[in-house]
């Protein structure tokens, strides 16, 4: 008999019941909540006279709308403020654990869940946010849900789900100077933004297992950009070492039992995947996106592709539209594209390791004059604190970067941090959609080291040559 994949195991361990057509009722262990996708869910509970099933499974924090500058004055935009105040009031009314804006533990949900140990191996983790895939890096089944489902999980601790298919993406060992972000962008370039639709992906191979937990989270974070709601990585010693001692981790008397159970959180040797993709890690170069979809990506030493070479008419039209929006000519060298703004942050790349990588490039260098703004936005208050203890803030400030308070910031520009129309940004975030970072803004997705390199040289520069 075929063995089970990691996803099969996680599914089986959480099925409460199965309907005749295969629809499962899945038990949820951790529910992360933020201000944007929760107000209508809490309102629904209130109208129906329902209560959360288990408040101890919830962790809530505001992240999308919070200012990244001085917070003592509160939130200036009244609509953003109302949304955060609504969350403040809802968590109070329903007794939900909360890290408010002025708490040192506040930050982007996908950064603080793992940081607090609230994300554990073997869990089911959901959040009204597509980048919940991040938590799959811990051998957890984690994916984004809509607001109706947020309400459903609040009320029942369960989610109505159809089982997904299994896909394995195996990446062999990568070369020096290639980061987790480059790996995941290369994967998306290979499978396409819809390649993972209907699948739960498991990332495997030395290219993945060599990564730290921070790096693995970067990879899982962007599974959704490859179309897969969930992107998992098997548990190993790296996972266990990361979790140990965190506030929400199992208590000492249960630790050994938990670790023993987590050993099984990997696919069986004889597990069968519906689809397997193999990627030669040694061929992966530092990546830069050139278009308006994360699959529109090439190595830094390549050129902007030419739609004339694309046979598929729908794809060709998409490329032409993307080039027009991005203000780029086909066949331009990526390294000749000038950058106006640099953004280092987001749930993809705002953890301590990301900031260290960017600081290493920034150290002793200066943001060039042609770059009008370079922002560094830590993922959480604790990341910020640690970075300051290591002196990273000073390196950034000395080089001409702005050092900000934690939040989503210019990843989607719901707060005051945004691009002006026509601005070209080297961004460590995850989406380069039209208007994502501000109407008319042009986003190029890169790793933290590449973003810092762009800041100090003014164009996309192969960080390995600095």
């Amino acid at each position, binding site marked *: 008999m075929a063995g089970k994949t990691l996803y099969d195991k996680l599914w089986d361990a959480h099925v409460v019941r199965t309907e005749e057509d295969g629809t499962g009722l899945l038990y949820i262990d951790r529910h992360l909540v933020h201000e944007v*996708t929760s107000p209508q869910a809490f309102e629904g509970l209130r109208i*129906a006279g329902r209560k959360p099933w288990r408040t101890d499974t919830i962790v809530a924090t505001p992240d999308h709308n919070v200012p990244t500058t001085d917070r003592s004055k509160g939130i200036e935009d009244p609509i953003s403020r109302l949304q955060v105040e609504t969350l403040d009031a809802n968590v109070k009314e329903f007794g939900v654990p909360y890290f408010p804006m002025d708490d040192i533990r506040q930050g982007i949900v996908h950064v603080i869940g793992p940081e607090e140990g609230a994300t554990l191996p073997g869990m089911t983790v959901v959040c009204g*946010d597509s980048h919940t895939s991040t938590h799959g890096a811990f051998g957890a089944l984690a994916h*984004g849900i809509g607001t*109706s*489902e947020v309400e459903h999980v609040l009320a029942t601790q*369960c989610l109505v789900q159809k089982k997904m298919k299994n896909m394995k993406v195996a990446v062999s060992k990568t070369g020096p100077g290639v980061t987790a972000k480059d790996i995941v962008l290369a994967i998306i370039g290979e499978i396409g933004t819809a390649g993972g*639709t209907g699948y739960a992906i498991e990332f495997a191979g030395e290219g993945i297992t060599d990564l730290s937990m921070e790096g693995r989270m970067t990879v899982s974070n962007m599974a959704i950009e490859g179309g897969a709601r969930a992107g998992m990585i098997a548990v190993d010693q790296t996972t266990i070492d990361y979790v140990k001692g965190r506030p929400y981790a199992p208590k000492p008397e249960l630790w050994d039992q938990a670790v023993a159970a987590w050993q099984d959180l990997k696919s069986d040797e004889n597990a069968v995947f519906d689809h397997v993709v193999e990627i030669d890690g040694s061929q992966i170069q530092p990546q830069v996106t050139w278009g308006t979809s994360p699959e529109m990506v090439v190595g830094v030493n390549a050129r902007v592709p030419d739609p004339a070479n694309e046979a598929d008419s729908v794809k060709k039209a998409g490329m032409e539209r993307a080039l027009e929006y991005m203000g780029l000519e086909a066949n331009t060298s990526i390294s000749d594209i000038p950058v106006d703004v640099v953004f280092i942050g987001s749930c993809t790349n705002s953890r301590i390791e990301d900031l260290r990588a960017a600081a290493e490039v920034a150290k002793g260098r200066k943001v060039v004059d042609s770059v009008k703004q370079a922002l560094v936005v830590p993922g959480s208050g604790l990341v910020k604190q640690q970075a300051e203890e290591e002196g990273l803030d000073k390196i950034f400030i000395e080089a001409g970067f702005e050092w900000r308070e934690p939040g989503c910031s210019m990843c*989607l520009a719901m707060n005051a941090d945004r691009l002006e129309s026509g601005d070209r940004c080297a961004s460590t975030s995850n989406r380069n959609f039209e208007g994502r970072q501000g109407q008319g803004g042009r986003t190029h997705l890169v790793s933290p080291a590449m973003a810092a390199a762009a800041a100090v040289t003014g164009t996309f520069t192969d960080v390995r040559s600095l």
Partner: protein
Amino acid sequence: MEKFTVLTGIVAPMDRANVDTDAIIPKQFLKSIKRSGFGPNLFDEWRYLDHGEPGMDNSKRPLNEDFTLNQPRYQGASVLIARENFGCGSSREHAPWALEDYGFRVIIAPTFADIFYNNCFKNGILPIKLDESIVDELFQQTFATEGYQLVVDLEAQTITRPDGSSISFDVDAFRKYCLLNGLDDIGLTLKHVDDIKSYEDKRKQQAPWLF
């Protein structure tokens, strides 16, 4: 949730692949704490020439006359045909809320992003996956015939074209049942409270650190 049984509606074409949720409803409108009123800002950046913000009087804003949905022939459309990977990007349910508020009850595409597809059913919208070649045909026919209409019958799982020819489609039995009856699935799940509790009891033994 509004029931979905049979719908006869004008078809509007969205002739782009990978239409993302940021395009369907830009982020500034996500600041609302309500569930309704998103229709006027559906496809905001494509539909208007100026920059939209919440609270604006949308009826006074300059329209982008070139944008499909602004063309007179597609006014009142309730069926949207789209290209592959429609609804990719974020999990925002504001996307189906905006489509539904605008008046769309059926979306037809070769493929949808998973979260968006799921969110549609929770909001009385029927997303239908059809072969790319059939979707292509529907695009051609929509472009060719002003006022092109389709009849979508969920119970029978058929789409009938003006010439009487019909196309059948797949839908999960459970989702179909909920949509046909306009059922909110929280109520359905709460019928299984005993199952949930017994699962919890068992799980507490196996993984006590989760409780």
